[in-house]
């Protein structure tokens, strides 16, 4: 199963767990699955059916340009990280 790494700021929602293995073949499926066991995670990450604007997802170290639609392998590592923009102010507002 893919392993999701939970950022420090979200660990209150994951009962302190830093890593959770969860079923899913896309980032969207993984977040839905996580939200079943740890309610609130989806609201933390998702807005208007996409990742919040200041959040990126990195799968196996590669930041995905398609966010929730990104495919995930069974042995993938999934990280939610701050979006590094090309320099627009809004992209620098928040860390995950």
């Amino acid at each position, binding site marked *: 199963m893919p392993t999701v790494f939970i950022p*420090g700021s979200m660990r209150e929602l994951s009962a302190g767990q830093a890593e959770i293995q969860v079923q899913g073949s896309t980032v969207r499926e993984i977040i839905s699955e996580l939200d079943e066991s740890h309610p609130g995670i989806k609201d933390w990450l998702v807005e208007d059916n996409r990742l919040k604007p200041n959040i990126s997802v990195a799968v196996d170290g590669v930041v995905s*340009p398609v966010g929730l639609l990104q495919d995930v392998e069974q042995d993938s590592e999934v990280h939610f990280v701050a979006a590094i923009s090309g320099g627009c102010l809004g992209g620098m*507002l928040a860390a995950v």
Partner: protein
Amino acid sequence: MSTQNYEPNMVLSTTEFDVIGTRPVRHDGADKVTGRALYGADIELSGLIHGAILRSPHAHARIKSVDTSEAEAHPAVRAVVTSADLADAGDQMVDLGEGAMPLKFLRGNVLASGKALYRGHAIAAVAATSLHDAQEALKLIKVEYEVLPATLTAPDAMRDGAPILHEDLKTTELGKPTDKVSNVSNHFQHVKGDIEAGFAEADLVIEREFNTATVHQGYIEPHNTTVLWNNDGRVQIWCSSQGSFTIRDTTAAILEMPVSQVKVTPMEIGGGFGGKIPVYLEPVAAVLSKKSGHPVKIVMSRADEFEATGPTPGSRIKVKMGVRNDGKMVAAQAWMAYEAGAYPGAMVVPGSMCVFAAYDIENILIDGFDVVVNKPSTAAYRAPGATNAAFTTETIVDEMAEKLGIDPLELRLKNAATKGTRRADGPKYPRIGCVEVLEAMKNHPHYNAPLEGPNRGRGVAIGFWFNVGLPSSCSMSVNADGTVMLIEGSPDIGGTRTSLAMQAAEVLGIAVGDVRPTVADTDSVGFTAVTGGSRVTFATGIAVIKAARDVRDQMSQRVARIWGVKEEDVEFEKGVFTSNNGTKNSITFKELAKQLSSSGGPIVGRAAINPPGVGGSFSGNIADVEVDPETGKVTILRFTAFQDAGKAVHPSYVEGQMQGGSVQGIGWALNEEYFMNPEGKMMNSSLLDYRMPTSLDLPMIDTVIIEVPNPGHPYGVRGVGEANIIPPPAALANAVYHAVGVRMDRLPMNPVAVMEAIWEKEDVPA
């Protein structure tokens, strides 16, 4: 200067191509060297009038009233605007494709509403038939201020009882909203491993506190815009910026109109470095145009540039690092407070992701604080946030090496991040070139050359920047003479017209001079994100490659049709189509181009992408200095810059980026700062007093391009515009230490700072 007896400007090339890696003359070169290139301020339109902006003389003040009646009565004045002409933003958020932010911040920075938050904050604007009349009319505007105490640094703004900039700004604490009103908009953490256990394992722990000053990008061409609010309701903008679509989308958001109602035509740009991404003038000029019925031009003065555009943040950073006697780094901790300026958005997030990015350290704890202060709202500046961060880490690593008796490059190599190293913010690195950069530094003649004489020292440092991808679009049409028109949307700051044309030429097997690139307006090309994040040659390059392949494939289909063969029987190599079905058919790209019209019509390739596979870039410096112990002046004797470019598409442009970034880093290190009085007035807001280095201050910046191909790009491109600014301050600080024995913990390291450090070491009263 000792730049003899070795080979400068090395390219440690890994792969050869036909066009990629060569050094053709740039397509826009003739216009630029003959003065014919059109920059934003060159625009002239029928009925054009001129705008000027009234700016706050106070760093922090409540605006009690603004009376524009006398200005409006001036015979040459055609329009006056204040924030009252912009609708209340409420709590709306604006997503500009690279992140969301409150609309009230965007609007508030364009025209102050309620409070002036920094000296230079725009209060009102006038458009008149001449610039002088507009400037005269500004004096007729009466503003009543209630002056408030200002807070100018992150530590001061964070203290209890500090003046509060935004009464509705509440701190987000470790991801959770709080009810605490403060100047800290955000406190976040990155946690890796067990920091306490890490320090317990260390044999040597070094902890220092650093301060860095606010600095400006220092582009030579000031911000400018010309805007026509047409009778049909469309807004047309001509300006120089790093992103036409960003200007379009931001202006549309502030004016609350559909983006399709705004058209931005990019003019040539005289430097940006991150500073020409935010919008300052366009919405103001647009409303002036709407009110007056004329096109309105506004051009900033140099003082406006310093006082009213976005510099890069000053910062206070505390770093603590632990290492074993065998040289293995085992723990690293940072407390980083960056000044955002008047509105949230300091570059502390990327800074925190870069502070220990060069090293494989098991236990890391990073606290970041985004702090608003009464200075202009900050903007990006090459590798935003990373230079402040690397100054601290690389200084401590040098001290570690000295105390452990290990060569400073060997210590870095022993701990260097490689593919698979987990970053502090979580993900593992893909293929990176940290080790290759360090090895190139270690093997370079500069590192091994003797440095003799008193008060001379050599310093080294490295840095990392992520680079970005983001969307790009382009189209490509084939002319009957075999030349190709490339239409793309990335404003060309560093020679990207040519670096993109080269990638098209490589695919199509034609000469780069046969590809004619045009940076199009926002009506004429698909969405393309900013020229920033070192992304254009990488991301727009991938779009160009994809469009060129589209052209090639359509040409192959056409050849098959002409020859009456199957498409799969047509091969293409180095600009020649051949058949592989036993016949000896052969036709060149140019020959085929002549037949397009009669064989089915024109061919247009296109691509619109948002690519993954960004390749981060490492850079390094070796710097030799001599310090005058009587004055504190630091003279650079020799300076060599190293950078992993992935594949250098046009090595001359890569070298230019490395030299430019190095010089900006040197200015940041030794001279540049916003020198503020206690009331928040910048006392050096001219290029005479804001001391940027000139060619007379510097030796030749020698360059070594390291090519560790990025697997995420067809030719291995990483992006080279930013990482080069990161290591100079630390390399120079380390060189100063090895020259005169003082550890510098603040930027700039100007003569005053160096002398104070020397006096402190010698226990001499300053």
